[in-house]
C-alpha cells in the first residue's frame, strides 16, 4: 500500500465524440481491414492519409512512410 496519494490522472473519463457518418464509415473500414489482418489495411490507411491535410505535416509524412514500410514488409 502506498503511504502517499498517487496523483490523479487527467482525462480518465472523456465522453465519446459524436462522429460524422462519413468519418464513422472510414474508421469502420480501417478497423475491419486491420482486425482481419488484411494487408489492404496499409493501403487503405495511406489512401485516407492522402486525403488529409495532415499528410503535409512532418508527422503525417512520417506516419505514411511507417505504414508503408512496416506493414508491407
Amino acid at each position, binding site marked *: *500500500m*502506498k*503511504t*502517499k*496519494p*498517487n*496523483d*490523479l*490522472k487527467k*482525462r*480518465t*473519463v*472523456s*465522453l*465519446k*465524440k459524436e*462522429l*460524422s457518418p*462519413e*468519418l464513422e464509415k*472510414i*474508421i*469502420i473500414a*480501417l*478497423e*475491419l481491414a*486491420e*482486425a*482481419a*489482418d*488484411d*494487408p489492404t*489495411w496499409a493501403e487503405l*490507411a495511406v489512401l*485516407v*492519409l492522402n486525403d*488529409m*491535410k*495532415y499528410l503535409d505535416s512532418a*508527422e*503525417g509524412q512520417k*506516419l505514411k512512410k*511507417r*505504414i508503408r514500410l*512496416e*506493414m508491407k*514488409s
Partner: protein
Amino acid sequence: MTPEEELYLFQRISQMADKYIPTKKLLSIHGITFHQAHSEAEKWRSNFYNLLDKHNICRNNLFSICIDVIELIEKHPENNNIQQIYCMLITDTGLLFPKGKRGKEITVRSYLRQKKNTEKLLQAIADDKALKNQLKILRSKAKLKPEMVKSDDEENAVYEMTLQHQQLKAGEGNTIYMDNVSALIQQINGNPYMRKVKPYLLFSVLFRKSGYLMKRAAYQANIENLFECVNYSIEKDNGKNFSDYGFGVELYEHLRRFYMEDKTVDVPLSDYCFANITNLSDWYYRFCEPNEEVPMTLLRKISEFKAPMFPIILTDEIYQGFDIDEFEIKYPVLVRKIQKEIQVDNKLIRDFSTAIYNNDDVSRNIVQLCENVDAYKFCDMKTAYKAAEILLYCEVENRLTDELIFVAGNWIK
C-alpha cells in the same frame, strides 16, 4: 471533413499503426516459426469443425452454427467444449469463415490473434464464475463486527487523495470528513474479508455518501448495503448525472491504483464488485473513450473480444451492389414501413430465420413482406424485393449479434 475530424482520424490511424506488430516479430513473440504457425492454424480450424460435429451443430451456414451454439449454451452452460466453440466462433476474423481468398500470412496472423483472444475469453469466463462465488462469501461476511484497526499513514494518504477530486474538495480542512474517512478505513481494515475489496467499498461510500461523510460526525457506513446492486440512470445526460458518473469512475480508478500493490487487497475481486454491483462501468464503456483500465462486466469483455462485425449474415452476395442507403434516401417512407413491419411481424422474421437456417429459398418471405407494406405503390417490385431482402437480413443479423452477447448471461446467472 473538419480539421477536428481530420485530427481525430489521424490519431486513430496512428494508434492502429502503433498497435501493429510485423509478422516476423509476432512469430518471435509466440516463439514459433511461420511453418509451425500455419500448420497449427490448420489444426485449429479442423478442431473447430470436429467440435461442431461432436455436438451435432448444424453446419449449413454461419447462421445455423450460431443458433445451435446459442441453444447449446442455454441447455449446457457448464460444458467446456461448448464454451470453447463459442469463444472460437465469436473471435473469428476470417480464419474459420473466410471471406474471399486469404494468403498464408493472413491465416497465420489471424490464427495467432484468435488463439490469444479465445484463451483470454475462456479465462475471463472462468474468472468471472470464481469471482461471483467469492462475492457471495463477501456478502455473507459483511455483517461481521470489525475490530477497528488504526493506520495513520493510510488514513492520511487516502484523505489527501480524495481531495484531488473536485467533488470532494469541500472536505479540505473539514475535521468531520477527515475523522469519518479514518473511521471508514479502520472499519474496513477490521474485517479481513472487507479489506480485500477496500477500493470498491471506499469508492461506494465516498461516491454515494459524501454528504454524510462531510457533515455527520461519527458517521458509520452500513457495509452490507454496499453489496446491493445500484442501477443509475445512464441512458441520458441530464446535465449533472454524467459528470457525477465521471467522478465515480475516476474515483474508483484512482483508488484501485492506490491499492494495487497492497497484498491484503484483492484487486480483481474489487474490480468485479465495481463492474457488477454498479452500472458505472457500463456507462463508461458506452459513453466514454475507453482510455483507462476501468473494470468491465463479462458481457462487456465478450463484446470487446468479439471480432468486429461478427457475424456477417448479410454477405456481399446478398447485397449484389445494391445501395440500400441511396434507396432509403429515395424512398424513406417505404423503408420505414418495411422496418416497422419487420419489427411487429414476429412470424415473418421467425419463418425467414428458419429458411436461412435450413438454406431454403427466402423469396416467399420477401414477397410476403413487400405485399404487407404495399411496396408496389412506391417503386418497381424487383427493387422493392431487393431492399426488403437486405432489410430482413439486417434485422436477423442484428438480433443474432445481440443474442450472441446476451447468451453469455447464462454463465453469470
